[in-house]
Every structure is written in C-alpha cells, then in structure tokens.
C-alpha cells in the first residue's frame, strides 16, 4: 500500500498547484501590456542582458558543497550501524572525519571560503 502513497503525495501537490493556476487563469482578469510585461527594475528599462556568466564565487561554494555532501552521504549508513559495530566503526569514522576536516582546512587555507 505504502508505495502508492508517495505517488499520491506527488499527484496531490501537482493537482493543488495546477488546479489553482488553472482556476486563476479563468477567474482572474488577463490584460497584458508592453510596459506591464517588462521585468521589474524599479521603473527603468533593463539595460544589457540578464543571463550572463555569473560570478565564480557562487560556483566555488557549490563545488565544495558537492564534495562534502557526498562524504556525508557515506556517513549515513555508518551512523545507523554505529551502535552495533562499536569501536572499529568509531576508529574508522575518526580517520574519515580527520581527512574530511583536513580537506576543509585546505579549502580554508586556499581562501576558497572567502567570499569575493
């Protein structure tokens, strides 16, 4: 039974959003205009393209995040069995976290964590 529930939840969400938008589409007025459909920039027409190559700072954090997130995913199975396995699991994770910490330290020293 439960496997259907995930699908149900997904469908519920889609029906909620879709239904409301479709209702609004028919119920609400629709009067587009050239000025109205301009993107908002404090009443001044936008100059230059919006979709440009964005600043590298954002991507740098995304890359560091990617590394750390993959590492934390490895930790989940460990966390579940930690109590049963005991000492060996603790020592293993200690080594793992040390390497992870060193990685963070490296990124820190390389000034990857400083926002430009």
């Amino acid at each position, binding site marked *: 039974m439960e496997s259907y529930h995930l699908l149900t939840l997904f469908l519920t969400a889609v029906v909620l959003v879709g239904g409301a938008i479709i209702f609004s589409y028919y119920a609400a007025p629709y009067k587009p205009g050239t000025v109205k459909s301009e993107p908002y920039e*404090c009443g001044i027409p936008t100059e*230059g393209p919006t979709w440009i190559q964005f600043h590298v700072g954002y991507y740098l954090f995304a890359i560091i995040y990617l590394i750390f997130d993959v590492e934390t995913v490895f930790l989940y199975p460990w966390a579940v069995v930690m109590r049963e396995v005991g000492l060996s699991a603790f020592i293993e994770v200690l080594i793992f976290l040390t390497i992870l910490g060193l990685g963070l330290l490296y990124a820190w020293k390389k000034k990857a964590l400083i926002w430009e």
Partner: protein
Amino acid sequence: MEETLVDIDFKEKEEYIINMGPQHPSTHGVLRFETCLQGEKVKYIIPHCGYIHRGIEKMSESLTYPQLLHLTDRMDYLSAHINNEAVALCVENAMEVEVSDRVKYIRTILAELSRIASHQLWWSAFGMDLGALTTFFYGLRDREKILDIFEETTGSRLIQSFITPGGLMADIHPNFQRRVKEFITYFRKKLPEYDQLLTGNVIFRERTMGIGYMSKEDAIDFAVTGPSGRGSGFQCDVRKIAPYSAYPFVQFNEITYTEGDTYHRYLVRMKEMWESLNILEQLVDNIPQGEIMLNLKAIKAPKGEYYQRVETARGELGVYIVSDGAPSPARIKYRSPNFSNLFIINKISANHKIADLVAISGSLDLVIPDIDR
C-alpha cells in the same frame, strides 16, 4: 576560434547594471542609483536625481517672503520647523530686527523636537534597510508623541509652517510645556530600548562596523555635513560654529567620532537624540514671557545679499537671498544638506557588497525632496 575569442572579450567588458530606484524600498524616495555590479560587489554607482524636482527656487522668485516660507516645509519634510527657521532668520537678519527671547526659545524647542523626530524616523528606516523590521514600529511609536505635541500647538503634524519671519504664527498651546516634559521622561526610558534592539545586536555590528569608511578629508571635500560628517570627525555643527536662536543660552556637546564608518554615523545620531533631550530640558522650563510676533509693516528684505546657516537633522542648511528690495526675492538659493551628502556615495560604497550599499545609503539619511528641491 576567432569568433569565440571575441565573444569572451565582450563578455568580460560587459557590465551588469542594476537600477536601485526610483521605485525601490531602500532609497526611501524617488532616487535612482545606477549600480554596476560584479557578482555581489559594487563597482561604481551613478546617482540620478531630479525625479521630484519642483523648482522651489524658481517658484519663490514670484512669491512674497511669508508665502515662500510654505515651500520650505516641502524640502526636508522631516525637519520642517528648522527649514522655516532658516528662512525666518535670514529675513530677520536682512531687516535688522530681533525677535523676543520667548520666540527664540520656542523656535529652538520646536527645532530640537523635530530633530529627535527625524532621527527616530531615520532609526526606524535604517533598521528596515538592514532587515530588522521591528525597529520601524518602535521608532514610529515614539515619533507619534512628538507629532502629537506639534499638532496641538501648530495645527498640523508634518509640514507645520509655524515659524515665520518676525516670530511665530501663534502662541504655544497651554499643554505644550507639560507634554514636552512628559516626552523627555518617556523618551529617556525608551532610548535604551533602541540600543537593546539594534545597537547591541551582533549581526547589526557586523553589518555596519568598518563599512563605508569616509575620511575626514573626504567629508570636508565633498561638503558632507550633519551627523554623517560628524561621524568622520568633521566638526560641522552650525549650532556650535555660528549659534542662532536660543543655542547660545544652552549647554550641549557636539558629538563627533573619528572612525567614519556606518556604525559611527549611526552612533552620532543616537547620541544626538540624548543631547537634544538635554537641550529641551534646559529650555522648556525657562520659556520667558514676550511678544510672539514682531509688529512689522511689511516683511521684505532690503537690497542686498544675505546668507543664513542653520543645522537641520541632516546637516547644514544654507539660505542665500539676493534682494532688490522688492516684496519677493530676486534669487533665493537653498544649500540643502542632502544634496551635498548624496554624492559621496560612489566613493564610500565602491567595492562593497550590494547589501552594504543599502546600509551606507541608509546611514547617510537622505531625504529625496531636499535633494531635488
């Protein structure tokens, strides 16, 4: 291959221009900052003003002195009393008459009350600029008390036109002194609350300390006056340099800091509210008896040129009148504090984040109608 190279070249030169204003929550009025960004960093800012330029100076040339007084309220509407006082003093000096001490005292009390009210509104809006929304309601709650006092005596809350050349429009309301004293005790208790909410906050300090540094030389060079200039150590308080009205009779300190960052511009205004309360306390009990309006045949400046400086809540306001002896001035110039304070923003906020730009422009306390006039 060549094409892509050209493309990359073009991309690097391309500037990401964002318009802060005229319809933007952080500019508190219709001012436009054309901001060039690199990521989140501000490369340069070009301020554009004039969205509400009404030509007050041109209009004044065809109005008599008592009439043009009402236009001055509409410049810096947050210190309307002080603007009125500037014109009144200028005309009185030109006519070589002197108002009674009673008028001087009342003018000074009204001016200091409007200074507090203005700083309260600034404090509220500055908190909002930084994202602390609750400050707005705290500041406005206390500002109401002052506006109530104004309303009782002058009949209106924001633009009063109460101080005229030759005296005052009317005498003070019988409740005036009692309510001012009540306000002093009330606000002395509330000011520490302001500090608890914002000044002591770690995030607030991180956001403002060391941000938007303005050196004393820059402040003088760009003619940045008022609390913004005093935050950099520029001793520009006209109340001290060229005392007018009842300021020679009172003891008060000119608050200056030498650090010149956003945090110290903030502190100057917070301390000034305490000083204003002290001035009010010294004056309110000692209002002497006297005439509230001089008996003048006609209010007009004799032929000549006259200049009067006063200290508004934002800095030095100058009124320059060129008169031919006619009932209306040949030329009247308002040297408005905000106009001079605005243009330093490019210098002090370059290489800061876009969030800092909002904090810095908030700390300069700009009132746009005063820039545009």
